């Protein structure tokens, strides 16, 4: 069951309207290595993973990723909310405006819609946790790319925070992997 807190996990400070930057950020909203993919991947894998530790971790990190979705969308919203149709045309994003004005959507920075093909669940906990660790690395890399693309200091600060979280999540999943491996060893002995 989910309860909602009316507050961002991290303070977002956007400099000024920047449509191109908003477009880049879409990849962490509805893209393959974005926060939505992470949240849905972990929240779905938890049903068949053994050990309470893994179930707790997938639930908790999955929940934190939903909070990160909100941080990404807040940046996109604040980067685009004052833009006019003219602004979109000038930024070369008239095609974006034509479909949905300034509305957000689950797509990547190329407009490719999100798909469940970005995630997997195999019921093999070793496999699932390895996917999770890989996912965190991919997200870290994308944040590093976005940091290089951005010239907005507020956005860069938030991206650095999100990048740090991926590193911590990777660490936690590594620990869960060891716990699950020990659990499987014990099952063999007894």
């Amino acid at each position, binding site marked *: 069951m989910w309860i909602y807190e009316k507050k961002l996990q991290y303070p*977002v400070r956007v400099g000024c309207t920047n449509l191109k930057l908003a477009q880049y950020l879409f990849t962490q909203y509805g893209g393959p290595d974005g926060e939505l993919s992470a949240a849905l991947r972990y929240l779905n894998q938890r049903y068949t993973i053994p050990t309470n530790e893994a179930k707790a971790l997938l639930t908790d990190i999955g929940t934190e990723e939903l909070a990160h979705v909100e941080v990404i969308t807040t940046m996109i919203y*604040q980067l685009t909310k004052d833009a006019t149709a003219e602004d979109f045309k000038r930024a070369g994003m008239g095609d974006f405006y034509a479909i949905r004005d300034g509305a957000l959507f689950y797509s990547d920075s190329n407009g490719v819609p999100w798909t469940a093909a970005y995630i997997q669940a195999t019921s093999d906990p070793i496999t699932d946790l390895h996917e999770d660790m890989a996912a965190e690395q991919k997200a870290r890399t994308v944040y590093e790319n976005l940091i290089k693309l951005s010239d907005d200091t507020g956005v860069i600060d938030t991206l650095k925070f999100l990048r740090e979280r991926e590193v911590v999540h990777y660490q*936690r999943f590594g620990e869960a992997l060891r716990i699950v491996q020990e659990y499987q060893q014990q099952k063999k002995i007894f």
Partner: protein
Amino acid sequence: MNDQLAFLNRLQQVEFALVELQLFLDTHKDDQRALMEFNQYSKQLEMLKKQYELQYGPLLNFGFSPSQYPWRWLEGPWPWEQVF
């Protein structure tokens, strides 16, 4: 940053420590020190939360926060409108 946002920022800091400890405890269930820290921050959060809500209304929905009259859950700023 106005007073409400400054208060939200204080909550963000305490809650961040709690998120970190939550994840850490998930894979370190026998760490007594971490658990003690978690409970300390949890108490601090409870106090801050009550203070915040007295002035600015409910932080959480579905009964995890009370509301004054008239229904204050409707009030902004919503998270995507929070300009720090």
